[in-house]
């Protein structure tokens, strides 16, 4: 892979943090090269002049899909909590939370 990678190792580490992943040094190196190769391939579209085209988020132009405000059955709590890694007093248990929600 002789091409210049469009992203740096530091960016790879930063992105891993955003995604809550931890990478070994080897993985950082591999991912930097592999992601770089994919992004280099994407150069074929980044160089296009697409001015005026509406970004396409959905295949079809549906709008206003709404449901009536009518209650439906909730889950059985025991069945739901049975799948949880840790539970206490009918709630999902986690360790210490550092920092308030943003």
């Amino acid at each position, binding site marked *: 892979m002789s091409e210049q990678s469009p992203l740096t190792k530091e960016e790879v580490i930063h992105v891993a*943090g*955003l995604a*809550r992943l931890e990478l070994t040094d080897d993985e950082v190196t591999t991912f930097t090269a592999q992601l770089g190769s994919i992004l280099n391939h994407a150069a074929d579209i980044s160089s296009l002049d697409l001015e005026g085209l509406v970004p396409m*988020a*959905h295949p079809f132009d*549906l*709008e*206003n*899909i*709404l*449901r*009536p*405000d*009518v*209650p*439906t*059955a*909730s*889950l059985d*709590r025991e069945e*739901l*909590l049975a799948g949880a890694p840790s539970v*206490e*007093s*009918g*709630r*999902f*248990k*986690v*360790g*210490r*939370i*550092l*920092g*308030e*929600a*943003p």
Partner: protein
Amino acid sequence: MSMAGYETIIGLEVHCELKTETKLFCGCRNAFGDEPNTNVCPVCVGLPGSLPVLNQKAVEFAIRIGLALNCEVKWSNFHRKNYFYPDMPKDFQISQYDLPLNEHGTIELPDGTVVGITRAHMEEDTGKSTHLGGSGRIHGADASLIDYNRSGVPLVEIVSEPDMRSGVQARAYVAELRAILVAVGATDGRMEEGSMRVDANVSVRKPGDPFGTRCEIKNLNSLRSLQRAIEYEALRQVDCIEAGERIVQETRHWDEAAGRTGSMRSKEEANDYRYFPEPDLVPLAPSAAWIEEIRSALPALPKARRQVLVGLIGNDDQATLDLIATVVDRDLDALVVEAASAGAPAQLAVTRAANELNAEGVLPSAKSFATTCQMEASGALSATQAKAVLAALSETPDADPKAIAASLGFEQLSEDTLSTTVDEVISANGDEWARFAGGDDKLAQFFIGKVMAATKGKANGKAVISLLNERRSG
């Protein structure tokens, strides 16, 4: 600490829970106080494979809010706001970003100030964490327990322009906003239950300067906290500046007990929410017909309702305005208007409604309320007796106030009986009478009290005073 030479710039973000039957994107009940994790389903716990479907009623409430705040209601869509937090089950929040439902509104405060509304957009609420160990707060806790009953409850976030200049004004804004949201039926407005939550953006500057660096204050769960926190924060910032320090843009936490704001110092990781259009939902494009249908069904808003009462009373001194605000806030204005049209004096009806009626409980019928006010105004009932009759009406709202007054033994004293009683009291208290007759007006209360005691509270205070004055001048 002093604000001399500085002004405070305040913008508010108010999160308001909508009063729907079900959550924003699923059919689970939107209810406060149920057993943990009983109002949950794959959608609001974020189980793999689940998909959101938008609640029509929540949209209607959001549009009502937008219209009541004079916003443009627009073509909009939903975005994902990505961040990890354990009370947020999908680790993204479905919110609105650059295309919110409502934009560019205004709200007029009772003092006439107009505050701009930047936007009022829809989003989902998070679950709730309970912290174990430590002080029950997040800091120092060993573990947390999460209940997702609140997860997915519909919210409208109302973002104001930085148009407020004092804590008092910010408080008035939230009070007025709350009154509007309650009036349109979109929320119950209970700040103490968290159904309205306020974040304040505060900065200070010397008048004419550009805006200063702002701090966002969280955890403001009462009007009182809001005002105190803003006033504290403004002073803190001025002190910083005067000490030659720079204000750091940050999120601060209001500590109600300590009466101060503190830095939340969240981790260094800068927020990068990676907003992108929510692919599981389609755009929300309310038709002009639907918007008009909602607009035409909007109830009268608090400002208009207050004006009706001002018109009825013909008096807008501050004390009256405060009573009127209370009456409207408690939804008692319709009763007052009806009682007034049935003959009750409006000023008295407003006063008694504001102070004596329990808006949460059973209210008297308009006819009974009007009759009671009329009896008090004519002197047939003393103020004390009128209040007792109103209290009795909360048990039997349609009862005849005259019958209640009779059953309570509130027959009006004949003028002769009252006159005789006054004379008896005067002769039994010769020293005091001499001083009253000599001009010591403070003793009027003494004689009224004696007459009231002798008549078991049946006497009309005004009538007693006029008799005393007759005797003194005669």
